[in-house]
């Protein structure tokens, strides 16, 4: 059934028909990662509902069916519960070939010990996925890549995939023109930048006349470790393992089960090989691997960047950036940020227009909300830093969480830890829950009790 195009109020909708997407409009999406695929998918879906013929070209030279770093977008590959639900309600059902593992819960490790945090529901809502087709040297199914799956969805909606690298994206007489490595050049009505922060091609958009400046980033570390299905099941048990260890500059680390592999992610500031080595020397970490295993000889490892803040000049007339090259939530939820920014940008472009004013009014508030939330995130991670450095606070957190998981109290600390590391809730939400008087009183009580009953206390 065809629906009329959403009218919008005359004061809010772009009055210039030149700066709106109409039948026959052409859109160039540079980058076929989740942000580019989501943008194309939602734009084409709305166009189909309104019976409008919009042409979308997605420029993506990488082949996501090839294992190794050439077809990988280098991220932990966790899709948290509310994103899985949002995708499902949008009609994007993750196939079992793409879901490497439905995560059954989290095991939280600190220097004082470990505690298993049960999920709020008995159904599995967190998925671990592979961004590429698999680690270096792996022989895996061609359908295993999450990014490949999304790009196929966009293609099924009608997007044309151009397997060429873009060498130039400029505005000529107010309209974007895209030139590929082969010298082929085309003019479009809208240019969408969907390259991740790890792409060296981000500088392409600096010539779009909006003063685009990429967001601040920091280095992380990702290692793919082949352990085999049995060892993964025995050592990790279908759980994601989160480490809050007293290692300088390390915010937190995670081990994620993915089929016969385990993905190790380290997030912090200025992560280097020395920090990685010190992480793997910790007994809490080695307890998650089979006895006798050493990290030496691991083939697939990388030090990708993650977005810390927001970009400048990320939109203009006929130009918009989506995904983590604009904004992303602090230390987590890169795919969720890609979904949120891409969908909002597609809705803005389709429903209101493609002028700078349209993106400023309707797209920027959503991205600004993420930037503002990251401010709360910085406070939350400062607090976690404080906790991991203080043995008393660590003991208090462990006592409080253990008591909650044993059913003795309302799970306040458990839910705060769950939402801090899963990305299920905003940093702001976590921040205000931590300030709850009952939470603070219980943490204080458990910290004092932990100090009194500590074997090391006088």
């Amino acid at each position, binding site marked *: 059934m065809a*629906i009329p195009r*959403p009218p919008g109020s005359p004061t809010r909708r772009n009055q210039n028909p030149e700066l709106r997407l109409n039948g026959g409009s052409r859109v160039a999406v540079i980058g076929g990662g989740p942000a580019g695929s989501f943008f194309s998918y*939602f734009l084409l879906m*709305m166009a189909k509902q309104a019976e409008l013929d919009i042409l979308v070209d997605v420029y993506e030279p990488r082949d996501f069916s090839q294992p190794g770093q050439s077809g990988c977008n280098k991220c932990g590959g966790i899709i948290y519960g*509310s994103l*899985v*639900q*949002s995708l*499902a*309600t*949008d*009609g994007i*059902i*993750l196939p*079992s070939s793409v*879901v*490497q*593992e*439905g995560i059954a819960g989290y095991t939280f490790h600190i220097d004082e010990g470990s505690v298993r945090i049960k999920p709020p*529901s*008995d*159904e*599995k*809502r967190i*998925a671990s996925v592979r961004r590429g087709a698999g680690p270096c040297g792996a022989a895996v199914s061609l359908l295993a890549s999450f990014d490949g799956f999304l790009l196929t969805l966009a293609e099924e909606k009608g997007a044309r995939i151009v397997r060429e690298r873009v060498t130039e994206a400029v505005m000529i007489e107010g309209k974007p023109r895209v030139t590929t490595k082969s010298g082929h050049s085309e003019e479009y009505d809208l240019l969408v930048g969907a390259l991740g922060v790890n792409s060296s091609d981000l500088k392409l958009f600096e010539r779009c006349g909006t003063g685009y400046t990429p967001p601040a980033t920091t280095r992380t570390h990702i290692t793919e470790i082949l352990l085999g299905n049995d060892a993964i*099941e025995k050592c990790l048990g*279908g759980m994601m393992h989160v480490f809050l260890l007293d290692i300088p500059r390390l915010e937190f680390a995670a081990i994620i089960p993915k089929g016969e592999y385990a993905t190790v992610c380290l997030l912090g500031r200025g992560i280097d090989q020395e920090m990685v080595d010190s992480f793997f020397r910790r007994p809490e970490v080695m307890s998650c691997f089979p006895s006798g295993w050493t990290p030496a000889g691991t083939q697939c490892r990388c030090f990708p960047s993650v977005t810390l803040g927001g970009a400048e000049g990320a939109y203009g007339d006929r130009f918009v950036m989506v995904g983590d090259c604009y904004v992303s939530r602090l230390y987590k939820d890169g795919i969720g940020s890609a979904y949120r920014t891409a*969908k909002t940008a597609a*809705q803005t472009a389709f429903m209101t227009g493609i002028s700078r004013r349209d993106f400023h009014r309707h797209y920027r508030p959503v991205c600004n909300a993420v930037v503002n939330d990251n401010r709360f995130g910085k406070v939350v991670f400062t607090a976690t830093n404080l906790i991991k450095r203080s043995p008393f606070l660590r003991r208090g957190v462990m006592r409080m969480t253990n008591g909650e998981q044993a059913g003795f109290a309302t799970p306040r600390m458990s839910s705060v830890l769950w939402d801090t590391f899963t990305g299920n809730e905003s940093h702001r939400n976590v921040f205000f829950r931590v300030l709850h008087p009952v939470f603070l009183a219980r943490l204080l009580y458990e910290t004092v009790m932990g100090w009194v009953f500590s074997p090391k206390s006088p």
Partner: protein
Amino acid sequence: MPDKDLGKAFSDGEIIFRQGDVADCLYIILSGKVALCREKDGTEVPLAELGKGDLFGEGGFFMDPKRTECARALGEARVITADYKFVLKKFRDDPSFAFHIIETMAQHARVRTEELEKTLEDQTLHQEELAAQNRELREDRQILEKSRDRYADLYDFAPVGYIDVDETGTILGINLTGAAMLGTERQDLLGLPFASFFTQENQEVYRDHLLECKRSSEGAINEMMLNTKKGVPTKVQIFSYPKQVSGQVVYRTVMTDFTTWKQRDEEWESALSTDEMQGKAKKK
């Protein structure tokens, strides 16, 4: 092999929720099929069959927070839930989600309307069938009534009296001719001993007649003198035989009034002799 897929699995035929359950979330099918049914008088009326990507259970969000239908897995099915808090947040953040929900509800409403129309058609068909059956029954009844009236006429107005008595000789039933021969209304005769209508000397004969009847399946025949209201005994012939009626033995008696027959014989004979005399006169 541990279950690594997302959501919650339901086996074939397993109930996902029942009609009347508290509705606090909507469901999205990740794989397999789900049947929605309405429970009525202990039976399930199928409403719709849903597949991968379909939403269901959204009604409780807008109306009574109780399930108005039940959902059952068809084969192995996997579903994921979205609680209403999440749905509210989505409504606020994403208008296209609201459109998607409205589209789903419209589809469900269409399916239900089609189902309702089908039920109405079925009911109309059923009513027509019932009317035809009623017509046939009425016709059958009329035939039966006519038949009954004809046989009642044959029984009641036969030229002989029919009397059913039990083994003690008590009158159980009698036709109108019989009642007229005994000179009493039919309803007053039921329950009276038949022997009391015979003359004193014939009552013993009737008892022997009844005993003979009990002994022999072929029955017994006697000529008796019947007391009438006019005070003049009438000669009758009674023939009785045993008969099973509703699992009970009754004795059916056929009573023929000799006086009437004799009068008719005489009238017939006199008519014959008149004819003969007239014939002779003509010959002369």
